[in-house]
């Protein structure tokens, strides 16, 4: 019975952690993408002839910005479905 309470405690803390990982990561990635997108549009409006050069770099940076967030999501999913901290209780 004591074990059950411990498992529930680990699960609840894990659930909170998942929310924090995904939520904070999403905030960061969204702000980053937003700033980059707005700057790209501004630059494209000022100098339309630069669009092809800038577009490739924008996608590259979008991938880089997204990456940290997606690594966080992968970690969160891993903890959601195969929680190594719970495995200790066997």
């Amino acid at each position, binding site marked *: 019975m004591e074990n059950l309470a411990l498992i529930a405690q680990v699960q609840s803390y894990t659930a909170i952690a998942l929310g924090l990982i995904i939520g904070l990561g999403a905030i960061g990635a969204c702000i980053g993408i937003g700033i980059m997108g707005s700057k790209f549009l501004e630059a494209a409006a000022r100098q339309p002839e630069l669009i092809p050069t800038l577009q490739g770099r924008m996608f590259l940076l979008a*991938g*880089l910005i997204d*990456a940290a967030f*997606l*690594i966080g*999501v*992968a970690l969160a999913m891993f903890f959601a*479905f*195969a929680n190594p901290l719970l495995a200790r209780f066997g």
Partner: protein
Amino acid sequence: MAGEAPESSTAYITHHLTHLTVGKGFWSLHVDTMFMSVLLGIVTLALLYSASRKATPGVPGKWQAFVEILVDFIDNTVKEVFHLDRRFLAPMALTIFVWVFLMNAMDLLPLDLPGKVAGLFGIHYWRAVPTADVNTTFAMSLTVFVVVIAFAVKAKGAGGYMHELFTAPFGAHPLLWIPNFVLNLVELLSKPVSLAMRLFGNMYAGELVFMLIALLGASFFTFTVGSTVGMLGQVAMGAAWAIFHILIITLQAYIFMVLTVVYSAMATEHH
């Protein structure tokens, strides 16, 4: 994946995340990852080899034109960043791009298809996406790491490289050797780790989202209203995520390739 119904969603996902493993502990080998990556490597070589064999100076066929666009694109990308002799780096960048792209593209196969095919041969675990295995991405990024160091040594000489490691950011005063070296070490080691984790994280997360979407329709054959909605949801969300994922797999292959070139270019620059 061998045909029997999974008992719960957690079991389904855990099953799909299990590699076909030979050996124990440190010496365990993920056979599915090895097989798929080597197979796709051979496919890469065969595709590009066939294009180069059949290349004509006259009117090119569709396949030849496509490969020429690809080679041109990557050669230009390398040329913009890396200013020395690129006879080694440009082909390596092409190999990395095509190979990583094909390995990532295995994510777009229907989720249960590779497992079902493997099940026909009596194999119960089969993960089809080699880049969703941290071993593949670290193997590639460590290889890139070795290449980067080789470029640095080639450009500066072994002595020059060592000299730079101990004197680069702050200066050549003996008191600053240790801080310099620590800083350089962190910079050096963060490259392969971030390169590998970025690709792995993206592919692993993508695969997991596909699994979650697949679970939506899992209870369809109970024929309730909720399960029908779930199946429609699976079709809609699966299509949306797959289309978005086409962008991601190309982007990640491109990023891996570009960062390899950028790191190599950084290593050859003199301070």
